[in-house]
Each structure stands twice: as structure tokens, then as C-alpha cells.
């Protein structure tokens, strides 16, 4: 499983402007950082009330990451 593909799939399904979604991966030794950028109007759609959407995406990521033994950090950049 490629975590970037998973994040891309989820985020593009949630936002109004999927064409503005961009992802950048930084591979570390133990951690993979995924930087996510979306259109300004879509920020709320990936964060959610009290951060609920972002938290859920992170939970799903950590579930799939635990199989590979690497941590995944999702950073939403605005």
C-alpha cells in the first residue's frame, strides 16, 4: 500500500476542487511525512469540525502503516 495514494484518494473524494490537491512525500528513516496542499476553500473539508476529518485520515494511515512498521505523518499545509 502506498500511503500517498491512499491520502490522495480520500482527499480528492472529499474536496470540491480535486485538481488543486497536491501531495509531497518526505521519506525519513522511521517516518514518512506526507505534505498535503488543497485549495483554500477546501481546507475545512480535509480538517473538519474540531479536526475530526484530519484525525480520521491519520487514524486510517496509522492502521495501514503499522503493517509496514513505519510511521506516517500527515501535514496539512495552508
Amino acid at each position: 500500500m502506498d500511503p500517498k495514494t491512499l491520502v490522495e484518494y480520500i482527499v480528492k473524494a472529499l474536496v470540491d476542487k480535486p485538481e488543486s490537491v497536491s501531495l509531497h512525500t518526505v521519506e525519513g528513516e522511521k517516518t514518512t511525512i506526507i505534505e498535503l496542499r488543497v485549495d483554500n476553500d477546501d481546507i475545512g473539508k480535509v480538517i473538519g469540525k474540531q479536526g475530526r476529518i484530519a484525525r480520521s485520515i491519520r487514524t486510517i494511515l496509522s492502521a495501514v502503516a503499522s503493517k509496514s512498521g513505519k510511521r506516517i505523518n500527515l501535514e496539512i499545509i495552508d
Partner: protein
Amino acid sequence: MKVIEKYGKTEDEALSLALKEAGMAREDNYTYEVSQKEGRSGFLGLGGGKNLGVKLFVYEEEEQKIVDKIKEFFKVMDISIDDVRINKREDDRVFISLQTPDMGTLIGRRGKTLESIQFILSLIINKSLEKNIYIILDAGNYREKRVKTLENLAKNIASRVRKYKKPFILEPMNSYDRRIIHSTLQDEEDIQTQSIGDRVYKKVKIMLKR
């Protein structure tokens, strides 16, 4: 969603009868399960032998789309799912059951992963169907077991509150779990419950009635 149950001597015969009633063909897209391997063999032995039951699940177009979306999601997530089935439909609430060899990953600690997947899937499905549907996911019989666990927890804590005459605050829970705690204890005459906090995950306080 329609569920058609038919009986026959063999699985094949029962399935054919069910498909006929649904007006469907073998090669159509459908889900079915063997509901009864051995039933009663008819009144006074009459009509005996026709004792294998098959349940055919016929989804509406919208429901088929939901099932397809869920399958797609798990494919991207790389979790192999043996079966996705709509179990029940109550207006805008759609109950889905999943079968997977990878139960641990899917459910996660205290159901956290399952809950997150359910939330994200609901958003994805609602956005693509332009509707407001609640997707309720279950894996194996996890939810059923979880309900029993929470009911036991509620009763145990209630006895403790009675014994020590002190309120007890449970750890933060989602609304679904909290509702089980509240409803388990609502008929206890000397106990009352209350959700406290203002986050998504509130805590339930169990205390003596004044």
C-alpha cells in the same frame, strides 16, 4: 433493498427460484447466502426434501453504488475484504457488514480504525451520491460484542458508584458508545448518567441520583 428467500433441494435450485422471482439472470450482479442448510422437511413429511434455503440480496442502484465505493476504498487501503454486504436499511441508515481475514487492522484499538473508516466512507459516499446517508460498518460481529462489553462496563461501574457513593467518569467515547451506556442505566432507580465535555469525544459521568 429486497431480500428474497427461497428453498430447494439444492443450492442451485433455490438460487434459481430466487433469481426468477427477482427477475434476474445468473450473470447479473447479485449477492446471496445459504440461509438454511437443513430446515424442516415440510408438514407431515409432505413437500419434504426442499430444505435448503438461499437468501438473495437485491440492491437498488444507489445501494449497489455504496457497495462498489466501499470495495474501491478497501482496495486502495490494501485490506482484502471477502464480502461487503448491506444487512439492513432503515431510511437513511445503511448497515454494512464486512468479512475480512484482516480483522485486527480493520477494527483497531477499541474500534478506532473502524470508526474512522466509517466516518470517512460516509463523507465520500455522501459527496458522490449527493445525499445524506449514515453508513454503519460492522466487521465480523464486532459491534454486537462491543455492545455487550459496554453494557457490562456500565453495570459494573454503577455497582461501584453505589458501593462507594462516589461518581465515576468514564474515558472519552463516541456518541454511539455513550448512548449504549446511557440506555443501559436509564432504568436504574438510584443511578443517573450525564455526558460531560464539549469535544466530539465526551465522557460519561455515572452518579447517584440525588
